């Protein structure tokens, strides 16, 4: 392996291939920062263009686009409360609050550094630990995925916000929306009202964009102040430095990266889960969890590190087994095939220079993100905010609409976008938190379908759900997450009693 890496190094650092990563990164930032347009779409458009090119040049562009695109989503999320990609939704929760406090530059800095650290750790995991991590991913069958989803649902409580009832209502809305579509096991259509477009359920990208991108725009239009955000809020210099505070962020980075890598390796877990689970976990273990959602930089760090760590890790099962760990990894697999590179164990034997070259490119593009994302892009994007809101609001709607239309090339998605946007705006006015909606939406269908698959395979025998030690551990973790708050409040009450008496 070390031979192969050393062999691949000169190829990776060839000027043409460095250029490829840079081009990919710049394109990725744009694609990621435009709401609705996702990295998956960007790479899919890129693939046919690379047909006649050298494989490493093509893969370099993909690597750059992957890492930069996944960070790019954080820029509008922090500056405008509009998520550029589904994974950046968790970044909004604290990132935008920081911007409102005038800490936009600091928030972006936290995001870019955390994203780089997550991506770097993930790329290192890809290079060094691909074989053992693949073995871990194979331990996960339907029963294990079911428990993983249950664990995720149990941690929703961390996102519920101040009003427990409204938080639970929001989660239920997410779970309900998740039931729409054809039921795989019986073929029955649920709540589709005969509409073809609803057969596969609501598209996550469309829903997330409607939920999170439109309400702030409506808000802007409502305020209709004829001036931009004051320049003093957008000072991009002279703010705190993340690098000097690395000790403070280190635990968050490590924990979030581990979560991101784990979710990335699992082919059955949706990519946008990583940032949410990382955020949840950071909030759960924090000393003062109530500061999350109020502009706590740790929230931004957790979300972005988790998001970045998902990237290269999703390529682990993709490269070694041909099983993509995320939607983007699936598209990259398609790109490999176009170049005659068939993923699987023999890929490492037949083309070690390309495989390790690509892995190094993932690592290199993560570092490059510092320069491209940290220095240039955030400042340029930041200036957009100085536009008067009356101009900015329709501009955002325009980009959102183009991006969402590009997902499926369907008018239907635009109607859904507007409908969801209006509902989300009303929910926001009524102080319902939106984040639980998302987790309910992603995890509900996963829990249901995996439970049914598991029971189908076992002929209805429920003991299959706890047949492996992975299932048992996940089930126990779920129980602990659910019981801990109950235990805490019970203890608090007991301590309070003697004081009252």
């Amino acid at each position, binding site marked *: 392996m070390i031979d192969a890496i050393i062999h691949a190094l000169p190829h990776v650092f060839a000027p043409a291939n460095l250029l490829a990563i840079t081009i990919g990164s710049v394109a990725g930032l744009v694609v990621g920062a435009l709401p609705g347009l996702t990295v998956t779409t960007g790479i899919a458009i890129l693939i046919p263009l690379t047909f006649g090119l050298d494989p490493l040049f093509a893969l370099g562009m993909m690597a750059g686009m992957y890492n930069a695109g996944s960070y790019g989503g954080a820029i509008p999320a922090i500056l405008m409360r509009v998520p550029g990609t589904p994974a950046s939704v968790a970044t909004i929760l604290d990132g935008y609050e920081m911007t409102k406090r005038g800490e936009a530059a600091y928030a972006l800095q936290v995001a870019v550094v955390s994203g780089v650290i997550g991506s770097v750790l993930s790329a290192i995991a890809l290079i060094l630990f691909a074989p053992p991590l693949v073995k871990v991913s194979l331990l996960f069958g339907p029963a294990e995925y079911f428990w993983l989803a249950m664990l995720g649902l149990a941690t929703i409580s961390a996102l519920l916000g101040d009003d427990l009832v409204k938080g639970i209502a929001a989660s239920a809305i997410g779970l309900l929306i998740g039931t729409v579509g054809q039921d795989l096991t019986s073929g029955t259509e649920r709540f589709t009202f005969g509409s073809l477009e609803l057969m596969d359920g609501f598209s996550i990208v469309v829903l997330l964009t409607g939920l999170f991108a439109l309400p702030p725009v409506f808000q802007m239009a409502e305020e209709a102040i004829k001036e931009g955000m004051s320049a003093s809020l957008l000072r991009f210099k002279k703010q705190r430095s993340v690098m000097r505070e690395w000790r403070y962020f280190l635990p968050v980075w490590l924990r979030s990266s581990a979560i991101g890598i784990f979710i990335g390796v699992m082919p059955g877990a949706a990519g946008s889960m990583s940032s949410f689970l990382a955020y949840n976990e950071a909030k759960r273990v924090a000393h003062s969890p109530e500061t999350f959602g109020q502009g706590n930089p740790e929230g931004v760090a957790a979300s972005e590190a988790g998001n970045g760590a998902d990237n290269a890790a999703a390529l682990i099962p993709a490269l070694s087994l041909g099983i993509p760990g995320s939607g983007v990894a699936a598209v990259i697999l398609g790109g490999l095939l176009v170049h005659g590179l068939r993923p699987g164990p023999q890929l490492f034997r037949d083309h070690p220079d390309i495989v390790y070259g690509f892995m190094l490119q993932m690592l290199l593009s993560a570092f490059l993100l510092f320069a491209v994302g940290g220095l240039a892009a955030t400042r340029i994007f930041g200036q957009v905010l100085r536009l008067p809101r009356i101009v900015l609001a329709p501009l955002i709607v325009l980009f959102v609409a183009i991006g969402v239309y590009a997902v499926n090339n369907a008018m239907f998605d635009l109607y859904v976008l507007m409908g969801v946007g209006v509902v989300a705006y009303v929910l926001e006015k009524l102080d319902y938190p939106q984040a639980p909606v998302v987790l309910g939406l992603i995890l509900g269908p996963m829990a249901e379908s995996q439970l049914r698959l598991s029971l*189908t395979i076992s002929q209805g025998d429920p003991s299959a759900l706890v047949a492996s030690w992975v299932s048992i551990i996940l089930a126990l973790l779920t129980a602990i997450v659910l019981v801990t708050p109950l235990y805490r409040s019970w203890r608090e009450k007991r301590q309070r009693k003697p004081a009252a008496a």
Partner: protein
Amino acid sequence: MKRIFRTGLMGMAAAIALSGSAFAADYPTKPIEMIVAFAPGGGTDVAARSIASFMEKHLGDGARIAVINKPGAGGEIGWTAVAQAKPDGYTIGFINVPAINALVVEGKAKFKMDDFQPIANLVYDPGVLVVGKNSPFKSVKDLVEAAKEKPGTIAVGTSGAVGSSEHITILNFERLAGIKLTHAPFGGTAPVRQAVLGGHIPAATMNLSEALQLAREGEIRVLGVMSEERSEYLKDAPTFREQGYDVVAGSSRGIAAPKGIPAEIVAKLEAAVDKALKDPEYLEAAKKAEIPLHYLASADYKAFLDKSTADLEATWKVSPWR
């Protein structure tokens, strides 16, 4: 006023009718939309995007083909869009047998097979039945015998839902072998492959190209290939027929246009596909990627489509899948 308007309209209609034939001669004069009924990055999408650039080359005159993804409802949304498009040769699309025929046979689709003008078939990927490397089943017969002993206890994973082409194939196999299996729909190729590799499911069906690498590495075992003859990409794997079960199934990808498109344009597109598939550069890439190319010209493709529909109709009568 009204009359002027009407004459104007008639004049316009005449102009359009006249331009029709001239228009076929210098086709294409504007970009051609190629509709793919699946998401970007999937097998059909990659096939479409790679053939599109070679078709552009062989259509000549700076022809442009834009690949448009209209995914959803197992392909039905995209196929409906092709069937209902204006038959002027500027909208063509990829159709996938037998998934598209299955929708028509169920009587659920908004189109009939006659609504399509077949242009050419490109790929035929036979189905395979696979098990994990530690599975006790060494042949189709082992699995059939185990299923006869305890009917319904062996789960077979598929990448589709109930009513998908892989599910229909399992029903056919059950009927021919006189057994009862349990269908476990995973809804995607990645999770079902992961489940087979991890030993979470006793057996699964998929397309040969999806099993090829893992089978060569000995990570999974191909019990039977559902083609008439052994595949040249995996010569060791026996066919179902060799083992006494007449299961022939697979999925094909081809190009079709809405019916009523001028014959000259059909011929032009057909020739472009034919030339593109013979292009050495394309052939080399396809061979490297081990794409199971299978060219059928328009008339043969039509016959193939008709036969697939007839077969499915027969299955539907005996064992409706929904």
